[in-house]
């Protein structure tokens, strides 16, 4: 599991995740991910490289989204693969964390709240 962070504007960041968001993967990124979510008002999480999402990974995303929302910000998911998006839908997460399939639109939406 790898995580890269790209600042895209004042208070806005794109987090690029790559690998399996299972127990092992979430364990690797959890601390860094929550630090990023806790310090930005616009967070776009690029999920294109995430091949597998388990409940532990949903927890990581959900805690991040809660932290961003508490400060009035916006937490957006970008480009999940079909199976991962289906998991998010089944768990009701797509109602809480908007899913975008276009990077520019996602970044504009995150910047609007920041």
């Amino acid at each position, binding site marked *: 599991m790898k995580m890269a962070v790209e600042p895209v504007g004042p208070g806005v960041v794109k987090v690029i995740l790559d690998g399996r968001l299972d127990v092992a993967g979430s364990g690797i990124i959890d601390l860094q991910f929550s630090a990023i979510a806790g310090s930005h008002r616009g967070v776009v999480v690029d999920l294109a490289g995430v091949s597998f999402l388990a409940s532990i990974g949903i927890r990581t995303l959900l805690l991040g989204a809660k932290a961003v929302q508490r400060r009035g910000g916006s937490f957006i998911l970008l480009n999940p693969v079909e199976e991962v998006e289906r998991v998010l839908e089944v*768990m009701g997460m797509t109602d809480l964390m908007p899913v975008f399939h276009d990077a520019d639109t996602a970044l504009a939406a995150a910047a609007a709240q920041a």
Partner: protein
Amino acid sequence: MTDGLLTVSEVYSLTLRNDRAELARMAPWIDDVIARLGVAAGTAHALHLCLEEAVVNVVDYAFEPDTSHDVHIALWRDDAAMHAEVVDDGRPFDPLSYSLPGAPNDLKSAEIGGLGIKLMRSYAARVDYQRSGKTNRLVLSFPAE
């Protein structure tokens, strides 16, 4: 296929200790068994997901802290279904008796707990749980094709 008789594959098994680090051995093993048994891509994904949730649950919650236990996992298929079994000697836990969190209304009230069991029950076609003696036996079934 003979009328009334199911053709059952070889049973593949893996034993993990109750340690989260051990879980890294499970996904490659599942892939290897799936390649031998041949199941549909959607079933392969559901199987990975449900076994991850079931085994993490056992490793995290079934045992007293600082005690060492084995968790036995088995996979097999018949003509119609793929089956995954998780056996442990931890405290009794029936995932079917657990009341699932409803669909969250908003981020603030969304619950962090219970997500794994909800996923498992959503993705397995059938969940059977049995407690006998000191043993939990969970069997998850999926369409094979």
